[in-house]
């Protein structure tokens, strides 16, 4: 075979599989050249840590999107789980409190799942409703006050703990990505999630019990949202009803930039990790360069369009394009 064709094929295949990796690398090199201090070890660790915080909820959101749904309530869920969790620390200690937070998140997610499947409200609007309600709950629970942890409670381990020198959020994000990737690939739950995402009616006809699978998916999204919320609260050792406003759009953005298609049926968990790194890296670079916030908005907008343009270059089914926003 002609070596030129071989090389071209190789580049094509490599590009298709590692697109996001390349983009992250190129942007990283550009930032290293133009932004002073970008390559400092401290800064790189910061970028990766903060990317992991978004990535964790992004990984949950990847599952929701793969199943053909959205979850707009993740920011509110994160805040609610965090205020409940932090308020428990003085009574039950850190470990139990974090567990309680996760359970609270999973319950909120499960309720979303019930509303979507049993009451048949489309996911977009169902989670928009729970967003409002759950924010209200957090504000009522805290009476609008801050819940602050004083002294050395150990809660900090969520954001500042290190294993072999690696910060805890990075470890949690990578481990979560690995676990979820295995679940998606090797368990019936994972395969069913993808089947529902590509065609819920067909999946049902094929014997998939759609509703319980979606309860599970949304419970996972809720738990990941809770974890992200608790890590953010651990960073500042404070939680309140305002925490993590706007997290939902960030989470959806990293998933889509990472290459998971909004039409469902496919999940790129590694892509979500890379998408989180890309956005965090760029915001960090712009901060290092002292660029005003308005330009950061512009940049994220352009980035989203570019990422999806890459995706679309592969061609999408018109019908699916037109039907985004439908739910199971």
């Amino acid at each position: 075979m002609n070596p030129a064709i071989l090389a071209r094929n190789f580049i094509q295949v490599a590009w298709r599989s590692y697109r996001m990796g390349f983009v992250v690398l190129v942007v990283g090199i550009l930032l290293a050249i133009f932004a002073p201090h970008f390559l400092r070890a401290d800064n790189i660790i910061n970028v990766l840590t903060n990317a992991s915080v978004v990535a964790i909820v992004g990984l949950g959101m990847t599952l929701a999107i793969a199943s053909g749904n959205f979850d707009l309530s993740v920011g509110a869920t994160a805040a609610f789980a965090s205020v409940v969790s932090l308020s428990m620390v003085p009574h039950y200690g850190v470990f139990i409190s974090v567990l309680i937070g996760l359970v609270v998140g999973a319950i909120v997610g499960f309720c979303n799942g019930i509303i979507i499947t049993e009451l048949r409200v489309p996911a977009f609007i169902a989670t928009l409703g729970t967003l409002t309600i759950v924010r209200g709950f957090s504000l009522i629970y805290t009476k609008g006050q801050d819940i602050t942890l004083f002294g050395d409670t150990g809660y900090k381990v969520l954001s500042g703990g290190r294993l072999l020198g690696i910060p805890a959020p990075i470890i949690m994000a990578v481990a979560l990505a690995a676990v979820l990737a295995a679940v998606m690939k090797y368990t019936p739950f994972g395969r069913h999630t993808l089947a529902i995402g590509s065609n819920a009616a067909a999946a049902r006809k094929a014997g998939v019990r759609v509703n319980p699978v979606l309860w599970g998916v949304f419970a996972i999204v809720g738990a990941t949202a809770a974890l992200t919320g608790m890590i953010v609260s651990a960073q500042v050792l404070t939680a309140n009803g305002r925490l993590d406003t706007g997290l939902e759009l960030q989470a959806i953005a990293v998933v889509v930039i990472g290459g998971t298609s909004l039409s469902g049926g496919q999940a790129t968990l590694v892509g979500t990790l890379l998408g989180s790194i890309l956005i965090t890296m760029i915001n960090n670079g712009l901060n290092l360069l002292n660029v005003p916030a308005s330009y950061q908005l512009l940049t994220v907008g352009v980035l989203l369009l570019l990422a999806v343009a890459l995706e679309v270059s592969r061609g999408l089914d018109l019908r699916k394009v037109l039907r985004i926003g439908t739910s199971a």
Partner: protein
Amino acid sequence: MRFPKLNKLLIIGATAGMLALSGCGASTAASSGGGGPKTIGFSVYDMQYGYFQTMEKGTHAAATAAGYNYKLFDEKSSESNMVSGTQDLLNQGISALIISPFQPGALGPIVDAAHAKKIPVVVDDIGGGSSNYDAIVISDNANGGKLAADEMDKELKAAGKTGKKVASITCEPSAVYAARRNVGFDAEITTLGYTVVSEVSGHSKQEEGYKDTQDILNAHPDIVGIFSCNDPMAVGAAQALKDAGKSGAKDVIVVGFNGDQIALDAIKNGQMAATVQQQPDKMGAMTVDLATKLINKTAITFDNPGAREIYVPVNLITKANLPTS
């Protein structure tokens, strides 16, 4: 085709119903100002923030103490909410309106509507826009920023630090009046011979103040001071410094703004140096007092009669003068 007809009928019916309702509503419009106690309406910026909760408490207590009925509306950080909800207050027969406006520019329609009903308007903090309000009680934001700069300089000199790089964290780009704190700080600290090497927005959020500070530390490891437009972001900054093994009271001088409880706690624990304290509860009480004067048409002494302004001093709170609570 029966549906189009049904549709038309319904539209006509609904519109007629609306007009009828609003028509006969006129006859039931309650008259205010009779014998019973008068009502004061307070439209608050956003009850999600500790600062405004304190302001609301002060206003409520003073109104009750003065024998008024009291009605609250929460603008929830939205200008159209602010205008429509305050309009709702005006339509409930209040005798005076007190408002801490989310968007001072949008006071125009509110003041116009209030004055059409002969209801006086007292603005509490934030700003008066270019509206024709009757009185405004305001913290001196620019001067607060200046105080913060002076304190930072003093503490840096006392600690024998020679670094000249400082950072300034701003609130939302849309918070025009709060931005004056940073402008006041930047001007004074520059006059004192420092350079503001980084000015980033933390969107008023604690978690963003934390992240911004991490970025600032990486870009300028030799930074010596951080001023934040509000206290939550200042506490976030102090926390980021602590996580980087530094102190916000000794290694890098962190100064916040507001005097929120979390900041007072952080100053007490030696995590940050100072905050510029506003006095929202006192401001609330003052607005009720002004409202009474306006209702009774007694004279008011303004600090700046041209703009009908009454200043409330801002205090610098450091570990040395922490209020004991």
